């Protein structure tokens, strides 16, 4: 039992770390979610704004013990997504059609990086060879700067975090030239088990030159501890008649 729990925690930490650090060539937090309390359920609204316009997606999601994430999208298109270390399944229940993407062993696992960034401890997401540049207190908040250095000694950029008594409220990732790559801002937090979960997450994504290309705003409601006895929602369970199609990944 204990061994299984530890294994699932390790798997989750490895999965989130790999996903977030490989998703962007620059440092990306949202990596290691510490072992405790990785099980939660919530309703969500995701607003995305880019130069194509603004879109809103809503539904419910669960962080399942063991490191998987299940998402039940209700609007605008009914959809279920199951994200695990080695597979991404997208099910369209109305059409009984599923896309299955197999993730290669050397490939980063699929991950909702903005949410993972809000739940993870930013310091634990960094490669071990990273260096602390500055740690200062101002107006009751703690501000930290890290130079991110990968295992090969290659400098990847800088990570800046702001932390209040309630938890981390901002993470900035900059490239070597000092251009922003990603910026995560977190709203007020709610306690779920041993973990503090932000009710709002705003993620801004920047092009290599520093121009903002996309903004995501996640709003979580009814955040509760995941109930293992309740039937899991949105985990894309395939039926015998489900048409399965391979999704290149």
């Amino acid at each position, binding site marked *: 039992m204990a061994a299984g729990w530890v294994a699932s925690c390790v798997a989750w930490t490895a999965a989130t770390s790999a996903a977030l650090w490989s998703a962007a060539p620059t440092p990306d937090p949202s990596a290691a979610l510490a072992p405790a309390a990785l099980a939660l359920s919530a309703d969500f609204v995701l607003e995305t704004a880019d130069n194509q316009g603004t879109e809103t997606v809503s539904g419910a999601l669960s962080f399942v013990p063991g490191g998987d994430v299940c998402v039940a999208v209700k609007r605008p298109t009914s959809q279920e997504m199951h994200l695990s270390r080695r597979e991404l399944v997208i099910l369209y229940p109305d*059409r009984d059609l599923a896309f299955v993407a197999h993730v290669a062993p050397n490939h980063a696992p699929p991950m909702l990086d903005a949410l993972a960034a809000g739940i993870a401890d930013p310091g634990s997401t960094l490669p071990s060879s990273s260096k602390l540049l500055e740690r200062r207190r101002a107006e009751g908040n703690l501000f930290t700067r890290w130079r991110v250095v990968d295992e090969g000694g290659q400098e990847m950029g800088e990570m800046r975090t702001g932390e209040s008594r309630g938890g981390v409220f901002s993470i900035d990732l900059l490239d070597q030239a000092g251009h922003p790559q990603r910026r995560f801002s977190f709203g007020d937090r709610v306690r779920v088990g041993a973990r503090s979960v932000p009710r709002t997450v705003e993620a801004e994504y920047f092009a290599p030159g520093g121009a903002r290309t996309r903004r995501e705003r996640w709003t979580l409601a009814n955040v509760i501890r995941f109930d293992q006895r309740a039937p899991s929602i949105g985990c894309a369970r395939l039926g015998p008649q489900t048409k399965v199609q391979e999704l*290149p990944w």
Partner: protein
Amino acid sequence: MSRPSGFLKWASTSTVVAVVAGALILLPALQRPVLAQQSWAPPPAGPPPGQPGYGYAPPPVDAGRAAAEGVQDANADINGTLWFFVGCLGIIGIAVAYFADPSPPPARLMGKSSEYVMIYTTSYKSEGKSIQGRHAIYGCLVGTAIGVAIYIILVVAILKSANDMSTVN
């Protein structure tokens, strides 16, 4: 002394020709394969107005939009500079660029139709690989050019010093 100088001329000309020919062959192949597959032909017509279509009709998807967004997001997400430096490693760098498969963030597939997901993912990966490969080749070419330049400078310097020595003797 005419032989070494002739050889040098021949070597540098051959190198330049090889690099330019390689670039001319490889670069067009890397230019946006997804967009290249699109045509200007009008989309296939659906059933006439007022008449029902037969069979299951999936929701309409603007395939062009899905492909364009995949291309655009890949352009925004993939760091060309990084792949340029990877390309400086030479053939190994280019191979890495072609074997490393970029994948779109799953959040971008949420709430999208199946047709959109398939087209977007395919175009994102295709464009991503193209960007990686293109920048790795640029890096390789620049690295090679710098290497060749250094080599030529060294050879000229050696020949010159040998020439000077033979003149003194």
